[in-house]
């Protein structure tokens, strides 16, 4: 296996050197949102045709069976080559694929090849009245004959406008305790009665969407698992996803810190000095640089733990909080370094990775990392209760 993995590393490294798109960030910045999505879909197909998209998956689903260590190599090599990650397909390749493999019926698993062909899955989890308290969700799915009828509203669905499928959590039993009455569905985004409305965010772009369900019919065979099991099924994800994602995030941070330092050397200060020589800037950048080293060490420690035990455990919450708050501080320092010139209206920035080099936009976007996927406050509750064993709070 060790030999296979090393051979794979060489193979993907050489392939990326020859095939990774150049200047993709600049290209995407100048493209329409639809073009951005098309770019990522085409890149997904290209990666897959070369066998580098899901080498970690079992062969029966289109992978090479290289497992977690293979996934780490893929991510390391993509980061090293500074190639794009198929970002709009993050849910498809992560949460959707894991759920289908673990809980999907043979019929439902037929959607997996669509993922490999670039199909976008979005999440229909959060609702206007169910954010951190997700289990309070109200969207209803009522069984009527050979289908369910869904009514309600979902929000914060990334790339919902371009999605082919929605992973939906809806309440099938309003009488049951709130975690028990929820079921998990796969919904065709072209279903009649389903409308999508983009949400313009603080950054000016509109990656997230609201989804409205108005008597949307969902076939019975699109229920994943059994009725009432939705909450448990929704916890299924490649637990390793966040650890692997950290490889890219750490490398991007390193690159972005270097970029800022290069820029600071060209920002003049009074007295013929540059910002790179200014004491408080040096201390700020050192603090960030030191924490990037810490993040890299945390990531490495977590990856080796996952490789040993198959479980990321509480490190997932820890990494999320540590990374997102470091990102927020770093982007603030970077934006501050550029002063007034960074305060021009960025228009509608495109999705080109979480560090685009537009420092103020990146700073604004950093709140998606401190809020999404469980706010940092919720993560701290998880750490306090599940890791440190502090008493749970009373919950309604």
């Amino acid at each position: 296996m060790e030999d296979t993995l090393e051979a794979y590393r060489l193979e993907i490294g050489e392939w990326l050197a020859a095939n990774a798109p150049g200047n993709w960030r600049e290209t995407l910045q100048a493209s329409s949102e639809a073009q951005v999505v098309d770019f990522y879909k085409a890149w997904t197909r290209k990666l897959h045709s070369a066998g580098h998209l899901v080498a970690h998956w079992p062969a029966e689903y289109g992978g090479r069976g290289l497992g977690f260590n293979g996934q780490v190599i893929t991510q390391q090599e993509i980061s090293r080559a500074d190639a794009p990650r198929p970002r709009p397909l993050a849910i498809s390749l992560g949460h959707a694929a894991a759920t289908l493999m673990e809980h999907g019926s043979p019929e439902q698993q037929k959607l997996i090849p669509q993922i490999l062909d670039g199909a976008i899955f979005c999440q229909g989890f959060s609702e206007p009245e169910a954010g951190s308290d997700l289990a309070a969700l109200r969207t209803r799915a009522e069984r009527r004959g050979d289908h369910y009828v869904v009514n309600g509203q979902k929000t914060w669905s990334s790339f919902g406008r371009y999605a082919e499928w929605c992973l939906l959590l809806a309440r099938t039993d309003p009488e049951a305790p709130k975690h028990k009455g929820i079921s998990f569905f796969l919904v065709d985004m072209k279903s009649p009665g389903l409308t999508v409305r983009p949400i313009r965010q603080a950054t000016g772009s509109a990656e997230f969407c609201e989804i409205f369900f108005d008597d949307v019919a969902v076939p019975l065979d699109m229920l994943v698992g059994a009725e009432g099991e939705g909450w448990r099924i929704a916890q299924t994800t490649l637990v390793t996803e966040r650890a692997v994602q950290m490889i890219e995030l750490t490398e991007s941070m390193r690159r972005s810190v270097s970029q800022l330092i290069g820029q600071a050397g060209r920002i003049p200060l009074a007295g013929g000095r540059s910002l790179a020589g200014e004491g408080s800037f040096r201390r700020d950048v050192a603090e960030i640089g030191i924490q990037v080293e810490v993040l890299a060490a945390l990531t490495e420690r977590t990856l080796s733990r996952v490789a040993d035990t198959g479980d990321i455990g509480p490190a997932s919450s820890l990494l999320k909080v540590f990374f997102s708050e470091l990102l927020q501080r770093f982007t603030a320092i970077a934006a501050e370094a550029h002063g007034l010139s960074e305060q021009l209206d960025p228009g509608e920035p495109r999705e080109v990775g979480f560090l685009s080099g537009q420092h103020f936009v990146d700073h604004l976007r950093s709140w998606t990392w401190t809020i999404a996927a469980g706010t940092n406050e919720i993560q701290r509750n998880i750490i306090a209760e599940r890791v440190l064993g502090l008493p749970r709070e009373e919950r309604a």
Partner: protein
Amino acid sequence: MSSTDERAELRDAVARLLADQGPAATVAVVVESPDGYDRALWRQLAEYGFLGLLVPEDLGGSGGQLADVAVLAEEAGRVLLPGPYVSSAVTATTAAVRAVRGGPGAARRRGTELIERLSGGAQTAVLIDARGATCGLTVTGDPQHGYEVSGTAETVVGADGAGTVLIGAGSGAGTALLLVPADSAQLMPVRLADSTRRAAAVRFDRTEVPASDVLASGEDAVSALRQARLNECAALAADSAGGARGALDLATGYAKTRVQFGRPIGSFQAIKHKLANMYIAVEAAAAIAEHAAAVLDTESDKLRRDQVVTAAGSFCTASYRSVAGDSIQAHGGIGFTWEHLCHRYLKRAWLNEALLGGQRALSARFAAGLIDHEIGAAPVGQTA
């Protein structure tokens, strides 16, 4: 020792040994004893080979790696182990081992004797780096004829009780590492806020160091002193990561049992989030401390070694300070009493940081490696 499993075994062995002796419980008593640390436990550490981890087997040591030292230092930090472990078994020992590897034949015997006594637990030693203008020592002479040392080095942590003083002196090709028996100097004990370590002012009055006691000179001495500083930084980082964990464990235990307003204070979100922040700092510190030791064991790139070890020293001591402070806060009034261990963690955190030159110096060193390397040339005229 190298594999993950063996290192886990080492951690268990260390933890058992320290738990049996109960340093955490008895630290308040031990630190008031004449030596300031438990001599019997020190001999046991030697018997286990823990004092000779950095000494190669052909010099009578256990031939470990810095990763092993980090495991030991982390456990020692967690239980506030009193004594000169880092100053003697890591810093002074590293300098001596490096020196006898490349040093002149005459001094090799003296150095080897010292190393055997250090790893065997028979005595301790301390390293004074007198190369900076701030040290207070004047060192004159040359490797062929020997040296003369005068002046006073203030607050040398680990000097009280040390049998040997190593002195790094000179600069460039004139750098030398000298061995001075402690009885040729005058050691005037000073008490530290951190009661788990002892210090002394070390005074020399035209003390002569014969050529046979010049352990290394020139590039060999520079490299011995550099490695000693890196190993010290990595060991203090690990001690700090362990200490922060000890302080967190105290606060967590207290938050589960202390009842106010009819419920354990750990059920309040204000306490939960404080402890969660402490946990994040502790885990992050442990990760970078472990990584820094591994980098020193395996990485040859000088800049990489410097940067990662400096990052570990800075992050771990800063985290230790903040976690130890938060531990006092989470305890409330009881945490501010002399009988409670909280203040001892906080004071050890501050001493660890001061031993590494403080956050400002660590930050400046890291910035130099990061920024000046990145933009190609050191902006000599530009630094603020």
